[in-house]
Each structure stands twice: as C-alpha cells, then as structure tokens.
C-alpha cells in the first residue's frame, strides 16, 4: 500500500500524466502551462516530458482557448484546458455555457464534447475581487456541464482521471489554498478512478450532519475533530461532484443525526449549497430534522483585499465550530 502524501497540485499533475500516457488524444492547453509550468505550478515539468505538441502554451485568449478545446474535443481529441483563474472563465463563458454544455443535447446527440476545464478558484491569497471568487453556482446551474470540486489530493487524482474519461464537458474546480498542502490521506499509486456523482462520507457521527464543498470540507473536518473531544460527534459529507449531485448519503445521515448544517465558500445568495437545502426540504427525510437547517456561506460581497477583510468574507474554522456547537446545544 501507498503512503504517499502528495499536494493537490502534485496529484492533479499525476492524474494528467497518467491520462497522457494512457491516451495519445489527451493534451493540455492554457496560458503559461508550458515552460512556466502553470501559474500555480500544476503542469510543472509536463512540457519537458511531453513536448510542446501536447502541452500547448496559448496566448491570453480564454474564449479562443476554450473554443479551440471544444472544437478539438468534437474532432477526436481529449483536451484538458487550464484557465489560469476561475474568474477568467467569464471571458470564455460563451464556449463553456452556450457551446460545450449544449452541443450534445442541442445537436440531437450527434456530437459530444469530452473536454475537461481545470481552473483554480477561491479566496485566501490576497488577490482581491477578480482573482478570488468561488463560482460553483455559475457552472452548477448550466445543464450539460458536470462540475467537480475536489477537497483533497487523493480525490483530485481519481476524480480528474474519471473526468478525462467522461465523454461530456467537465468543469474541475481546484482550490488554490489546497495546491501546496498535503492531504490527510495518502494518494494511491496507479490509475484508479473515482466515479463522478458519488458523494463521500468523510467521517461519521450521530449528532450533526455537515455537507461542505471544496476547502470547506477541510475546515469542517478540523471542527469535527475538535468537537469530538467535547463529545459532539459529526458526520461530514463531501459531495465531490456538485453536478451531478448525490444526495442519498445526506438523507441517510440526517435520518440518524436529525440536524443539518451546510457550508460553502461562495456567497450565500443563490449559492450552490442552497440546492442541498432545497432537495432536503423536498425529501421524505425532512421529517427527521429536529433543528432548522443551518447555512454557512460567504458574505454577499466581492472578495476584499486586506487579510482581515478577506477572512471576514468567507466562513472560517471558528465560524463553523461556533455554528456546529450552537445547533447541537440548542436543538435537542
């Protein structure tokens, strides 16, 4: 067995190299993914390993890059396109939302778009409002896109391999703060896939169910550990893919705990995590709840610059801890 502790950047790169070695039609394109190794170092040495024909440095032209990936995907290739910051997907949104997402459906199944768009998202780097957003709901609200939000290196590797296999467009949202830190669990050797659309029960408890996405899984995990010492036991569920969304483990857990808290980094208003609440509200498990559902999410503001302002804008460990303690203590 492996005990390799990789960072998410290393795990993503490993998945890409496995896919490169398995399939000649896989290639990577994006801004500075070549000699530079990617703005966050994710492609690393791939340019030197695979050459400029499979690791394509592009001009700064997000719409053109994603469009070229769509066209190549329609024509027998399997592109992985890296958009340097998820904020810049706004430049490419026609190709993402109007073209890639709709082609299979709109053209009556004649064509499909096996493309993965990888992009770093999230706050915490002091890069301010145009380099720090969490845009999960933008993509989750477009039928025809699959949306993956890995919270740790081992999942990132298996999910990215499954995403590259998938015949449909996949948006793969990587959190910048996770790139350089090792995960809690080792990353398996080999080319194992983690299927899209299967949530992961990260840990089990009996007092509270927390559903969190991306980096909020990590923050919530720390809270679970800390509160376990106080005798509060928590089930933590990571959907891993937000489209499609696997709610079954959430229903099963809530039937045991009777309490639900949802946590996301993005703004609360019309956020992705609201979908979890809506589906719970309409399910037969709703009657198991003994407490109002608690939502923790980012403030409805652009991400600010100064460190103390930036921290205030999104849920922190202390916020999650306080909310978890409160819901368990107040609702019995």
């Amino acid at each position: 067995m492996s005990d390799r502790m990789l960072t998410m950047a290393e795990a993503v790169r490993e998945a890409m190299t496995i896919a490169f070695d398995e399939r000649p039609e896989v290639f990577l394109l994006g801004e500075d993914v070549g000699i530079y190794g990617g703005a966050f170092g994710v492609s690393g040495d791939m340019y030197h390993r695979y050459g400029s024909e499979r690791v394509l440095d592009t001009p700064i032209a997000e719409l053109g890059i994603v469009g070229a990936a769509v066209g190549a995907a329609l024509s027998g290739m399997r592109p992985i396109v890296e958009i340097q910051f998820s904020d810049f997907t706004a430049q490419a949104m026609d190709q993402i939302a109007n073209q890639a997402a709709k082609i299979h459906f709109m053209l009556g199944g004649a064509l499909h778009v096996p493309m993965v768009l990888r992009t770093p998202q999230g706050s915490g780097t002091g890069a301010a409002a145009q380099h720090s957003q969490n845009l999960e709901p933008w993509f989750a609200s477009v039928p025809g896109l699959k949306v993956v939000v890995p919270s740790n290196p081992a999942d990132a590797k298996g999910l990215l391999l499954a995403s590259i296999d998938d015949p449909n467009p996949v948006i793969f949202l990587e959190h910048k703060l996770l790139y350089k830190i090792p995960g809690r669990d080792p990353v398996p050797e080999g080319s194992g896939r983690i299927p899209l659309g299967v949530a992961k029960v990260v840990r089990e408890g009996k007092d509270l169910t927390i559903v969190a996405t991306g980096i909020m899984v990590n923050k919530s995990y720390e809270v679970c550990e800390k509160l376990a010492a106080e005798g509060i036991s928590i089930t933590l569920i990571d959907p891993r893919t937000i489209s499609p969304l696997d709610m079954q483990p959430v229903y099963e857990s809530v039937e045991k705990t009777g309490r639900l808290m949802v946590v996301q980094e993005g703004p609360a208003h019309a956020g992705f995590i609201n979908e979890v609440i809506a589906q719970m509200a309409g399910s037969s498990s709703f009657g198991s709840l003994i407490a109002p559902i608690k939502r923790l999410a980012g403030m409805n503001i652009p991400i600010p610059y100064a460190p103390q302002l930036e921290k205030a804008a999104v849920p922190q460990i202390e916020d999650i801890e306080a909310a978890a303690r409160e819901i368990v203590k107040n609702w019995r």
Partner: protein
Amino acid sequence: MSTNPLVMGHPLASTENARHALLYMCRIRKFEEAVEDLFGRGMMHGTMHLSIGQEASPTGMCMALTIQDQITSTHRGHGHCIAKGADLTRMIAELLGKEIGYCGGRGGSMHIADVETGNLGANGVVGGGIPIAAGAALASKMMKKGTVAVSFFGDGAMNEGAFHEAANLAAIWKLPMILFCENNKYGMSSSTEKAFAIDDLADRGKGYGIPGVNVNGNDVVEVYEAAQIAVDRAKKGEGPTLIIAETYRWKGHSRSDKNLYRTKEEIEEWRLLDPIPKFIARAIKQKKLTQEQCDAIQQEATDAIVAAVNEAVKAKAADPAGLLDAVFKKVSA
C-alpha cells in the same frame, strides 16, 4: 445519410461539376423558399434566417472540400448544411420538430449538425463557431488527418472577440483552417459601413499575418477558385486564410425584419445579381450544360425539396419523454 456524394473541383471543369454547382445552389434556393412557405402557412414555429441570394458562397467553398473536411456554420446555416451534403428530409424534419430531424427536434434551424458530412453544426451565437473550427483544425493537425476546417460566419461576426481570438490562434499555430466570411452587408440592421472603420474587410488578415482575399460571393466559380487556393495552402501546413465573399441576403434578417435599414432599390439591385442565372449563362456559354439540362436540374432540385417536405410532414413528432436522458452522453463502462 447524406443525399449525394459530394463533387469536388472547379464548377466549370466538367458537365458533372457544373451540374453539381447548379443543383446545389438550386437546392439551397428551393429549400429556403420552402421554409418561408412553411412559416407563412403556420406549419413551422420559432424563427428562420434565410440565405436566399447567397447560394454561391457555400456551394463554391464546399466544392473545394472533401466529405472529411469540417465546417462550422451560423444561424443562417441551411446553405452550408446543404452544400456540405446534408439530407434534406432530416433538415426539414428538424425545422418541423420531428423525431427524425437532425437534432430530434431539440435544436431546430440554428443547430443542425451532420457528422457524416463533416458539419460540426450551425450556431445560434454570432462568432461561436469560429474558435470551434480552430479547434477542429488543431485536432486535424495533431492527429495528422490532412483535413481542413472551414468556419463560415457573417460580417457581423468579424467584430466579435471570438473571431479575433480564433484567427490569432489559427495563425500562430498555422492551423489548416479557412475563415470564410459571407459579407452580406448587414449584421441584422447594422451595415458594414456603420460597424467597421475599414473599407476592405480582407485587410483584417494582415493583422493576423495571414492572407485576406476578396471574392465575388455571388459567383460560384470565383468563390471556388479562392477556396481551392486556401484549401491547398492549409493542407500544405502554411496556415489559415481569410476569405471575404461579398454577397447579399434578399430576405430580412429573420421573420421579424421589416427592412427599415435598407432601401427597396438596394434589394432590387442585388436581386439582379442573382448567382443562379449568372452561373447558368456561363455554364451554357462554356458548353458545360445546355438550357434543357439547366431546366431539368432546377426541376430536380424542386422535386427533391417537395419530396423532403412531404416525407418530413408525415414523420413522428419529437417526443418529450427522452429529454432528461439527452443532456449527457452516456459514460461507457
């Protein structure tokens, strides 16, 4: 199923080629007239963008292409589909919302694609197909397919960022691509005079370091000759070409158009430049076709459209039952 194997080569190289050029221009004309008629009679819903008057451009371009060469098309895309060899019945059926339509009724007029004839699809977004064609050309280059990808678009698309980004990518990567602009003078109501500060749209080629050429888009021979040069250049690995084909749409932008932005006189002037009689006269003069043959070809086109409409009208309406399962392609085990 494509209706006919495509004929390649110069429209006046032989009787067969001349017949093909005339037949396909007439198919496009009759198809568009049928669509207008079906709309007028309330048998089609949605909207339509007719390319009557523009038939020579797609026909000439596609006579330089193999069936494996790829195209992307536009909202005004019926002509491109037909010129590339699409099945007329499945096209009409799509517009009528039938199960046998190209998109099973899910796409309609603006989203017909045909994998068998290398048609990657019409597009509802102006300029949307241009980067996609660049990507198809990139795939051709990476996979050493030896094919070319043509993006058809209108003058309006040349002011979209998508045009600029795709033209630049195609140029720096020397992609086997052709940027084919049907300059029909208007992006909806905006004339090229209002929308461009340059007189010659082909000048844009210089900005990307690629050839920019002007052709008479109502002359199928001239279009073909420029297209063949561009195809040869692309297939030799020398990169893309921008072709500006000057043409005119006789009908409005869509069915809501009241033609407030142009004069009746202008429309009449262009109707006199009809590409079909122009080609007939030339083909007869060069003894590639006789008047009788030309009459028969026109009748053949009409008969094909009538047969397609009759078959499509009888076909089963698209069924909403399968919609949810149609969003994603199934993941194979």
